[in-house]
C-alpha cells in the first residue's frame, strides 16, 4: 500500500474511533442526563457529568489518534505493533475512566412534578472489572504480536516484499 492509501485508512479508522469513543458516549450521557419515561422525569443525578465528559474526551482523543497511527501503519510493522499495544492500554484507561469518573455508578432520581419520589441506581463496576480481565488478555496478545513483529522482522519483510534470496529461477 502506498502512503496515500495508508493515510486514508488511518483517517477512516480515526473517524470510527472518534464516533465510538467520543460522539456516542457523549451523546448518550447528554441524553441520559434528563429523560422521561411515561411522563415521569428521570433525572440523572450525576454530579460529575462534566468529569465523565472530560475523561471521555481526553481518552477518546488519545485513542483516536493512536488508532490513526495504528491503522495507517503497514501490516505487521513494529510501529503498528507498538501503537496497537498503546491503543489497547489507552482503551483500558478509557474504560477505567468510566469507573473513576462515576459513570459506572449511575444514580437516577425519579421526579414527578418537581417532587422526588424515588431513585434507580445502576452499578457497572463488576462489569468493568470483568472487562478489565478481558483487556488484560488482549494486552498479552498484543504484546505477543509486538514481540513477534520485532523478533521476526526480517522474515515478515521478506514475506511482504516476496523476495527470494539467491535469485529467481528463470526456467
Amino acid at each position, binding site marked *: *500500500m502506498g*502512503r496515500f492509501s*495508508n493515510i486514508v485508512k488511518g483517517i477512516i479508522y480515526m473517524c470510527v474511533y472518534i464516533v465510538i469513543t467520543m460522539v456516542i458516549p457523549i451523546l448518550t450521557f447528554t441524553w441520559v442526563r434528563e429523560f422521561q419515561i411515561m411522563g415521569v422525569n428521570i433525572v440523572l443525578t450525576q454530579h460529575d457529568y462534566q468529569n465523565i465528559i472530560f475523561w471521555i474526551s481526553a481518552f477518546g482523543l*488519545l485513542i483516536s489518534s493512536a488508532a490513526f497511527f495504528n491503522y495507517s501503519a503497514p501490516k505487521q510493522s513494529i*510501529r503498528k505493533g507498538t501503537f496497537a499495544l498503546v491503543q489497547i492500554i489507552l482503551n*483500558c484507561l478509557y474504560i477505567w*475512566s468510566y469507573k*473513576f469518573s462515576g459513570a459506572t455508578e449511575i444514580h437516577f432520581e425519579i421526579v414527578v412534578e418537581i417532587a422526588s419520589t424515588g431513585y434507580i441506581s445502576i452499578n457497572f463496576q*463488576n462489569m468493568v472489572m*470483568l472487562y478489565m480481565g478481558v483487556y488484560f488478555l488482549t494486552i498479552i496478545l498484543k504484546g505477543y504480536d509486538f514481540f513477534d513483529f520485532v523478533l521476526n522482522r526480517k522474515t515478515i519483510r521478506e514475506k511482504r516484499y516476496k523476495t527470494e534470496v539467491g535469485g529467481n529461477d528463470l526456467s
Partner: protein
Amino acid sequence: MILQAVDFIQVIADIVAAVLNFLKQFVNPMGLFMVNWMEYVLQFFPQKDLTVYIIIAIVIVILGFIVNITWPGNKKPGFLAKAEEIDEKIEKKAKELDKKVEDKAKELEEKVEEKVEELDAKIKKKIKKAKKKAKAIEEKAEEIEDKVEELEEKAEELEEDIEELEEEAEELEEKAEKLEEDIEGLDEEQEKNKEKSN
C-alpha cells in the same frame, strides 16, 4: 409500567450477576492487577486540562502523517534491496551467458548446416557418379548380354552346322564306305576278271 421495567432490569441484572460471579474467580485477579497499574498511571494524567490531551492527539496524528509519508512501507529494506541487486546481477549474467550460449549454438548450427550441405553435395556427386557408372556397367552388361546372345546364337548355328557337317560327314563316310565297298567289289571283279582273262 415503571415497576415492570424495573423487574425486567432486575432479571437482566441477575443473569449478568450470575455470569460475572462465574467468571469472577478467573478474571477478577487480572482485573485487580489492571486496576492497580492503571490507578498508578492515572496519577500522572492531567485531570482538568483538556488542552494537553488535544496537543498530544494532534502531535500523534501529525507524527503519523510524517511517518507514513517518509516510510509508507512499500520501499524495500536495504538487505532485501541488496539481495535484489545480487538477483538482478545474477539474472543479467545468466542472460548474458544464455545469449553467448545461443550465439555459439547458432554458429555451431550454421557450421553444421554448412558441413551437412557440403556432405550432401559430395554425396549427391558421388551418387551421380555411381549412377553413371552403374548405367555404363548396365549398358556394358547389356552389350555383353547381347554379344553373349549373339555368340550363343552363332554357337547354336555352328552346332547346327557341325551337326549338319557331321551328318554330311557320316553320309560321306557311308558313301565312302560304299565306294570302298564298290571299289573293293570292283577290285574283286577286276581280279576275277584278271583271273578270268589269265
